[in-house]
């Protein structure tokens, strides 16, 4: 069984927010929910200042904190190392949100239309998105990036990987030393975010420059 992993190449990423929006479109996430998040950072001081976008997703940790704290068993890890939330089991205690070091999890209480002063009923797209969301996720429960499990099962790449204009995102098998992700991590000094939490993320970043 492959262990799915991600590589986000910070030197290629120019901070366009496409991953964030493409994830929203592909997963029909409601207002305020973004499974892919882009967080701009600045360091140094004028005139030698630096800026960098740091894209975040669920890091699909090999030893996930969220799974440990989950009291209900809603959080599980599949055979590919992808951490999943079962919406039918989750009680929405948000303990996983507190315990996740990577801010990967969010909850939402209701479907709010993006067009606030509209007359109540949803437009065809929002109605479709809402139905999809309710079928696959729901309200009050923890939700997060699942490495586009449905797409991957169909043999496609995750939506954010396909969309990224700079080709800064890669998806593949960490256990296969010859996979693109493994090679990139090896050759380009891939690192995990905040390894001190000991969760062994399956998402690696390549250095900004």
């Amino acid at each position, binding site marked *: 069984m492959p262990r799915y992993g991600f590589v986000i190449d*910070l030197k290629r990423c120019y901070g366009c927010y496409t991953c964030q929006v493409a994830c929203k479109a592909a997963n029909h996430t409601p207002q305020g929910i973004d499974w892919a998040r882009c967080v701009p950072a600045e360091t140094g001081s004028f005139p030698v200042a630096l800026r960098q976008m740091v894209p975040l997703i669920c890091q699909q940790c090999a030893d996930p904190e969220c799974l440990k704290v989950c*009291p209900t*068993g809603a959080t599980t890890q599949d055979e590919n190392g992808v951490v999943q939330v079962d919406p039918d089991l989750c009680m929405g205690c948000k303990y996983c*949100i507190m315990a996740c070091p990577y801010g990967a999890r969010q909850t939402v209480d209701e479907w709010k239309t993006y067009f606030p002063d509209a007359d109540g009923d949803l437009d065809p797209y929002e109605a479709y998105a809402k139905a999809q969301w309710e079928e696959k996720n729901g309200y009050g429960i923890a939700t997060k990036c699942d490495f586009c499990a449905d797409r991957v099962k169909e043999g496609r790449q995750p939506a954010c990987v396909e969309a990224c204009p700079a080709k800064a995102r890669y998806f593949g098998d960490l256990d296969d030393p010859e996979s693109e992700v493994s090679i990139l991590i090896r050759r380009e000094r891939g690192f995990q975010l905040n390894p001190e939490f000991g969760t062994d993320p399956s998402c690696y970043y390549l250095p900004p420059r």
Partner: protein
Amino acid sequence: MLPNLKAQSKWSWLVAAYLFLAGLGAGAYVTGVVASYLGDGWIGISKIGVCLGFPCVLVGCMFLLADLGAPLNFWRAAMRPNTSWIARGTIIITIFMVLAFIHVAFWLWPFQGLAEAVGARQFIGILGVIFAFGTMIYTGILLAASRPIAFWSTSMLPLLFLVSALSTGIMAVILLASFAGTTHAGPIHSLARFDSLVIILEMFVLGFFLQGTHRVPEARASANLVLSGAVAPLFWWGVAVLGLIVPLLLDLLGARLEGGGAITVAFVASLCGILGGLFLRQVVLSGGIHAPLRAGRFEIALPNI
């Protein structure tokens, strides 16, 4: 540019109320059980304490339930005791509630017959105290287990919650006892004096707890938030003044007074201290800040927490 670290907002005052009531209930129960060994003058006090245990924890759980996003699944809360402190806590609290309930039942119809079974009651009491301590401490461990939140992730927190739970438990007993006027004057007096010691202890623990925040940036950010930021008014006025200094001073004052005056002072002190206990939970929750993430030289704050 250091990232602007923001506190978590997902655990609201409902959770604070739960942590607080669970602690208070357990603390009151312990007070009650201990009082039962102090002689006949303490029987009323003991009953008050023991009786407070179950309902306070139960109401606390209602608050927690209200905070759940999918409350219909609450019954799954104990499925993963091997790793999750909510699951463990749920078990501890459930056992505690069962024990506390049985304990109360000894005095109630139709179980009054058992009232004579002193041994059984004492056995239940001792078991109950063990689980009460579990309840008091676990509320702290629950938070301490969130590793990315350094403010919580410290062994001082369970200790702090334990001391505060005891203190608020005692004060809850005093509060109820004082409704009976001077009937329980003696024990109230003693409880108040004992409580002043607990308060002093709590002050130390709180001090150590805050002192431990200098090590990592997110904990420093928490301390800043609590001591001088948005949460500071609640901390200084609600916890420090209302919850600790005022009750301590009043308790000391009460020790010099007699009769009704002393009872009134103890009543006010307890009321303040109890509110302080609630505010303490809220302060701790709203001071919870996740560690920044680091990518090379860049640091970012978690969005959306």
